[in-house]
């Protein structure tokens, strides 16, 4: 079972790390929902990423908001509160037929690339719903190119985006919580990536 990243997923991960070079950053990777439910996949293609937080990653509440708030059928007489939050991650996944397939984390210090408690717990939670989940820890070495759908294209586009400082406009979930108008799906950056392809 191998993991592959599209250019869009890779670019946004990198831009997230580039925007906050002095912080630890983390986020989720999503893959398209597999049509054949019973047959296992031979490779998982992560088509997009959701940058989550920067700074203190080891606090639970907002991570839970990002991971666990889900949509469900409203049953009459349901005593539990419901609310209208179409922008939350699970709703977005359902709309686009994505499934959360992985988690990435870049630690504060580039030399420290081991998964810590946070990374392991998030990955465990993700793998409850997706058995082929993957965790990506950022290191500062040459990547192995078979993780990429198209490494040459990914390199070229990332270089162009870094050059134009596109990371300044990247929005993560933290930015969204600071101001709800900030869109963590980053449609403008997606457009730039598509445009450069």
């Amino acid at each position, binding site marked *: 079972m191998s993991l592959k990243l599209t250019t869009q997923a890779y670019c946004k991960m990198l831009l997230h790390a580039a925007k906050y070079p002095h912080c630890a950053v983390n986020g989720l990777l999503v893959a398209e929902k597999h049509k054949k439910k019973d047959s296992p996949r031979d490779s998982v293609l992560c088509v997009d990423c959701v940058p989550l937080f920067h700074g*203190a990653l080891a606090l639970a*509440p907002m991570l839970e908001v990002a991971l666990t708030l889900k949509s469900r059928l409203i049953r009459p007489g349901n005593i539990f*509160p419901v609310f*209208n*939050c*179409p922008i939350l991650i699970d*709703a977005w996944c359902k709309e686009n037929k994505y499934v959360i397939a992985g988690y990435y984390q870049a630690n504060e210090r580039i030399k420290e690339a081991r998964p810590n408690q946070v990374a392991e717990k998030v990955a*465990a939670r993700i793998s409850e719903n997706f058995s082929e989940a993957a965790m990506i820890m950022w290191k500062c070495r040459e990547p192995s190119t078979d993780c990429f759908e198209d490494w040459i294209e990914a390199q070229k586009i990332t270089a162009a985006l870094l050059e134009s400082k596109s990371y300044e406009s990247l929005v993560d979930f933290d930015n969204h919580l600071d101001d709800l108008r900030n869109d963590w799906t980053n449609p403008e950056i997606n457009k730039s990536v598509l445009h450069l392809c």
Partner: protein
Amino acid sequence: MSSISELYDVSWEEMRDKLRKWREENFRNSEQIVDVGEELINEHASKLGDDIWIIYEQVMIAALDCSRDDLAWSCLQELKRQFPDSHRVKRLAGMRLEALERYEDANKLYDSILQDDPTNTAARKRKISILRAQGKSSEAIRELNEYLEQFVGDQEAWHELSELYINEHDYAKAAFCLEELMMTNPHNHLYCEQYAEVKYTQGGLENLELARKYFAQALKLNNRNMRALFGLYMSASHIAASPKVSAKVKKDNVKYAAWATSQISRAYQLQHLPAGVMLTSLALSISTKTPYTTAASAGVAVVIEIHGRRQT
């Protein structure tokens, strides 16, 4: 390449004022500071008067952040020339050594400052930052604790210590640091909210109730703090779902959670975001063990190091 003043159609006075704003509010937008500051220094140095020295300092630190050693070096030279025996400039020289990862040399410099002036807090804090940069968290924590015994009022240090404790998952001690900050800054909604997050992460019914109260307090101080609103919702939901609470407590918390959901919906609607999917929280079916107490026993299927060997 066009200059900042051309690109944004700003005068040198506006650039100088912008730098002052960033300096006063302690922003870490280093790339912008370098762009604006470098132009100001190169083109308008004579007009800046005595402001130039503090701008050199600000630009130097930003240049270190952006790996612009050339710019940092030239700023440092100007400052050394103007203030030859200054400890403040010596500390900047130390920071440059830190940026070059010459930690031994930097430490020697800071030690010489402390020999001259044992009360120099800046040099002590830089030594602690070196420990943090080297990943020596426990030593950094120990030194910072010793520092705070002497300089109890240093809020920046209390906040740094709380961050260190959070990274080490020592939430009880992180909470203590935030309590100190809340005592001296009772109107700061961010400290309240962060304290609540730490309590929530600690887990357990008592901590969840405290978390809910402090999320509520943060909201009282700033009713637009979305984290506090979500936090209130999550903590009230967890308490309501707990089998250990009485029926009354359950009912009250369901009410609090319901209030929070209506406020969250309203906040999104006010942004004219499209109404759509109705949501409930999966948190309600979570057991009383908070996610942070469950071990990673499920085991992740694959761990891939993107820049290294693939491991299964």
